[in-house]
């Protein structure tokens, strides 16, 4: 569990977020908390604003109204590249790796914020830069070991299959050593086996590294299994929040996902898990 915050104070507070693209409202007065040490799932039908909310949290989008407080910092006006230094890392729905680099270098590139060497030290290499590279290589090798990707260490990631690329991307986010990990559909497009692998990695990250995780995911069964709490968005509005069990029986959620006839459809949601 992160040490800097107490168990009760939220690690991140999103307060009254409004985000518009022209006339289209992506988020309307969305508020939620992320508590330290929890796995919070953000779900909702396609176009509900899940990724938009995530993009606001790491400064990719700027909400027109509202506030984001993280670990004592106001993120609303923090430059995008500073936010990971405060302790937020993320993965992307459509994998955004550095395709020309090896898996190892992708992870090392994420150590950027933890490294100190100057341009001149880099050019000289011998001495401080060399020692720093090795020290960070050690950290990276632990992550490589943890995610079981030793065999692809020196493979160019552009040539890797989809499932492995997703894993490299997760590794890259871990290499930032964040307090809060934002995962944008980590299991999208995977088969059952790969999904189970990924779920295991997420749970391991949470347990062994004590990371707080915000998960955006479509696979209901999986979300209900691993999330501690769930926030549901629909058309940019938060329609529900609660434990997986509360969400499963929440009429507004069922309506958003399945339409009007509540009774007959509820069993469908249950049977998905």
């Amino acid at each position, binding site marked *: 569990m992160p040490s800097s915050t107490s168990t009760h104070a939220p690690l991140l507070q999103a307060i009254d977020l409004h985000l518009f693209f022209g006339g289209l409202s992506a988020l309307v007065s969305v508020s939620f908390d992320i508590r330290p040490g929890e796995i919070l799932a953000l779900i909702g039908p396609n176009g509900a604003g899940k990724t938009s909310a995530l993009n606001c949290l790491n400064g*990719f989008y700027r909400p027109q109204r509202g506030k984001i407080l993280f670990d004592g910092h106001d993120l609303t006006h923090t430059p995008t590249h500073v936010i990971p230094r405060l302790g937020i890392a993320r993965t992307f729905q459509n994998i*955004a*790796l550095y395709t020309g680099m090896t898996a190892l270098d992708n992870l090392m590139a*994420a150590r950027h914020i933890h*490294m100190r060497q100057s341009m001149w030290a880099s*050019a000289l290499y011998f001495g401080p830069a060399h020692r720093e590279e090795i020290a960070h*290589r050690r950290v990276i090798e632990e992550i490589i070991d943890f995610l079981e990707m030793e065999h692809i260490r020196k493979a160019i990631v552009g040539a890797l299959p989809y499932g492995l690329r997703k894993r490299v991307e997760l590794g890259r986010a871990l290499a930032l050593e964040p307090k809060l990990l934002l995962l944008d559909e980590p299991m999208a497009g995977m088969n059952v086996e790969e999904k189970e692998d990924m779920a295991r990695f997420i749970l391991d990250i949470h347990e062994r590294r004590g990371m707080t995780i915000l998960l955006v995911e479509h696979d209901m069964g999986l979300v209900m299994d691993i999330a501690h709490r769930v926030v549901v968005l629909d058309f940019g509005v938060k329609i529900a929040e609660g434990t997986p069990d509360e969400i499963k029986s929440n009429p507004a959620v069922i309506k958003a996902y399945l339409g009007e006839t509540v009774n007959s459809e509820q069993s469908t949601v249950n049977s998905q898990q």
Partner: protein
Amino acid sequence: MALRLAGDFDTSYAHDMAIIRNRGQWGMTIAFLIGLFALPFFADGHVIGTLNLIGISIIAVIGLNILLGYTGQISLGQAAFMAVGAYSAAVLVKAGVSFWLALPISGLVAGLVGLLFGLPSLRIKGFYLAMATLSAQMIIPWFFRNVRTDIFGGMPGLTMQPPRLGEIVFNSQATMYFPIMLTVVVCVIAAKNIARTRLGRALIAIRDNDLAAEVLGIAQFSHKLRAFFLSALYAGLAGALWAMYARTINPDQFSLLNSVWYLGMVIVGGMGSALGPILGAAFVRVLEEVTVQLAPVLSKLFPQLEAGLLAALGPITFGIALMLFLVFEPRGLAHRWELIKAAWRLRPFAH
């Protein structure tokens, strides 16, 4: 994935990261360096002259490769930044500064000018950035031609005294060879070190996915500026060495055409590889030399050919070579070299 020699295993992270991996490679490296610096004692002046020109081109092309190959930012102003270096060196030497001190200063001056022209990269990319850097290529030679002709010599340009070191005067191809090749070696090593450490990874990250880089803590703008600075710094060093090599410099030596040639060398050599600039610069310069040698032979064999056509032989060959590379080997000579090396190591098997 890079293939390694059989029996070559990593024993530590330092070993895994090393470029020169075993005794054999150390031996070859040392032998190569000895050979490189012993060459002027054996080869004739013309060969050394060509090598000097190749060396100067290599430095400029390495700089461009940092910007284009690693950072993915295009620049059409490399020759202009060379001009800044050349003029800085010439003016400083004229003012009584030793050339050996003027050389690094010229690099820094060019770097700062490059930084200035890199500012538009904050907002624009690709084709539009190319047009913005074209302004450097327009403004800088114009500046040296028309502004303060008392300092920069206007159209006829400047003449620089050959540098000295004690008793030695660097006024022949063989003597100039040493400072040029020494700078080349330092520049190659520095570029390779940059590419394999924090800065290089940040630059490649920006090339491959600028938005992801920003989200993961790599400040795009400051790193693009670093790339422009380094690229122009290399150009400045090349320019200062050019001033020593040519002795007389004028604005016409640093035209847009030269910038395009450097771009061509980066492409022929292989973008984003450490070896690429060396192979690219060498290949294009040798090709140029061959066409120069070939022109009189051709005019004897085919007297009906027009003189103008023979004069254009160089550019035509370069153009054709560039097109062929873009179509058949867009990853350049460096990639081809990797393939040959891999095939050699896998021999006698195909995979």
